């Protein structure tokens, strides 16, 4: 087992983030699914030894993660939020972090990692000039620079456009194909589904389900799926998507178009073509938790 958690608890003062979570994660890619505030990040941070558990037990690669530098060198972590020194170049940043991680030749490790995430062309530019997709790649590069056995990725696809999303998914799957075990979190089932069949679902600090993604998918599909698309031509894009009959509701808010679809698979498959036809530059696709909330409620009540 890569991760074995037994009745794991985490409190922040009087707020409980993880509640008696018992979970085993094996080799390969595992998805950790849950809405914002479900306890995903807390769980991941305990796994990598960034935080100490309040109760219960956890073993990662057979060792306790808290205050264990020997284990930390075997894990790569890609945090949800950017944590860059914006004035550095991408190459300098990855090399510096690799050296801090204990790699002797930081520059060589950085070169290898940057090539692996296909960021070589912009590696000598300042991070401040990077797009969202480049930043996500850079975070992946710093996570793999020291060749870890186990990768922990916290919402790696959040805020990426469809093309970058596809590239990152291919990248993560490629890393897994090299033999790395990957634990990836998301609040969007569609993202997790593109990466793996094995998932664990957390909600309000509790593990509510684990197993095959298809079982969760069946539940999800009973509830309309809400998707927010930020683009320069929201009305044109909405018109294209509405014509196919996969969209049951459209509204425009905050400069974005919000769509509800009962058939998310078909919707996501048609989205790139519709954007092309409408001449719309898609800046961001995100899915709020409304639809998942219903499933989580169902799972919790069950």
């Amino acid at each position, binding site marked *: 087992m890569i991760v074995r958690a037994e009745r794991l608890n985490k409190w922040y003062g009087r707020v409980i983030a993880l509640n008696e979570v018992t979970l085993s994660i094996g080799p390969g890619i595992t998805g950790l699914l849950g809405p914002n505030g479900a306890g995903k990040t807390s769980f991941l941070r305990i796994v990598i030894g960034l935080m100490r558990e309040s109760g219960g037990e956890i073993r990662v690669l057979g060792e306790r993660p808290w205050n264990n*530098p020997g284990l*930390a060198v075997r894990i790569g972590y890609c*945090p949800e939020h950017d944590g860059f020194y914006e004035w550095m170049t991408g190459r300098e940043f990855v090399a510096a972090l690799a*050296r801090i991680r*204990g790699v002797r030749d930081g520059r060589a490790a950085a070169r290898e990692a940057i090539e692996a995430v296909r960021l070589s062309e912009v590696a000598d530019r300042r991070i401040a000039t990077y797009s969202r997709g480049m930043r996500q790649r850079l975070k992946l590069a710093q996570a793999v620079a020291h060749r*870890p*056995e186990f990768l922990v990725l916290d919402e790696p696809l959040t805020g990426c456009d469809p093309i970058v999303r596809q590239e990152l998914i291919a990248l993560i799957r490629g890393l*897994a*194909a090299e033999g790395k075990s990957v634990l990836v979190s998301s609040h969007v089932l569609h993202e997790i589904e593109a990466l793996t069949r094995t998932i664990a679902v957390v909600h309000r600090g509790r593990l509510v389900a684990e197993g095959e993604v298809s079982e969760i998918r069946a539940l999800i599909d009973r509830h309309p799926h809400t998707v927010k698309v930020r683009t320069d031509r929201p009305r044109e894009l909405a018109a294209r998507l509405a014509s196919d009959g996969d969209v049951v509701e459209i509204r425009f808010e905050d400069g974005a178009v919000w769509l509800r679809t009962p058939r998310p698979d078909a919707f996501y498959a048609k989205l790139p073509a519709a954007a092309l036809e409408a001449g719309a530059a898609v800046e961001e696709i995100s899915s709020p938790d409304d639809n998942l909330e219903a499933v989580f409620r169902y799972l919790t009540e069950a």
Partner: protein
Amino acid sequence: MAVHDQSYAAWTGAYTSRWARIRAIVGMELVQAFSNLWLLLLLILAFMIVSGWLIILFFAATQQVLPPFAIGNRLYRDGFYNLGVANLFFFSMILMLLAATMGASLIARDRRHNALVMYFSRAITRLDYLAGKFLALSAFLLTATFGPGLLLWLVVTGMGPERLTFGQRLGDLGAIALHSLILVLPVSAMVLAFSSFTRRTYVAAILWVTFFFASWIFSTVLQGTLKEDWPKLISWMSLAAHLGDLCYPVRGLSGKRVLDCGWVEPFSILGSVTVLSLLLVWRRLRSVEALE
């Protein structure tokens, strides 16, 4: 269908030592500091004082009778590190500005950029991180204190008119190093503590500068009001200058001490402040979620 190898093999490669990882943090911070123009200008200012002394010493050496400051080791004490007027010591001021510019950003900036997660998800402990930041700031400040002091010592050793034994010269060098450390270490610890309080570098810098001048103003006002000497112990500058002064073996004219006491009280105060500041930072770093 492609079947990928999903088994994992235990890592067998070698990683660098813990010290090398701390050194990586120090190196990263020093590169950053030495590329800051304002910090470089302040460093040059420190070296300009030495250059001024060297010119004065050059002309003094041509005189038949040497002036008092050119004899013994008063040159380092009164003439260099403790140079100042009205209990305002020039070197302490340079250090204060350097520390405010570089030190205030060290932890505040990492908090602002969410970089603590990047550090602590690596094979370094909170203690390693603290050691890295503390050593980086101390090393940089030493380039402004020990660097010019060493230059002055080298020139005086090479061209000075005084006949000294090797042991005496080595003693002076040791005193210079110790004086530099006394000036630098408490400042580094205190500024890191201020830096850990906030995400905004300028707030940390303002807190430190306010503390520095408040200690001097209170000390001066209390001395004038109470007509006593003990308020000098409140002044950060006086404490560091007095302890530094005590590092030098008395040779030539002894000169007036900054404080009328031994080393115990000033050392206890500065030592306690240093240890407490570092403990405070360490305690804050223990909980990443609290800092975020």
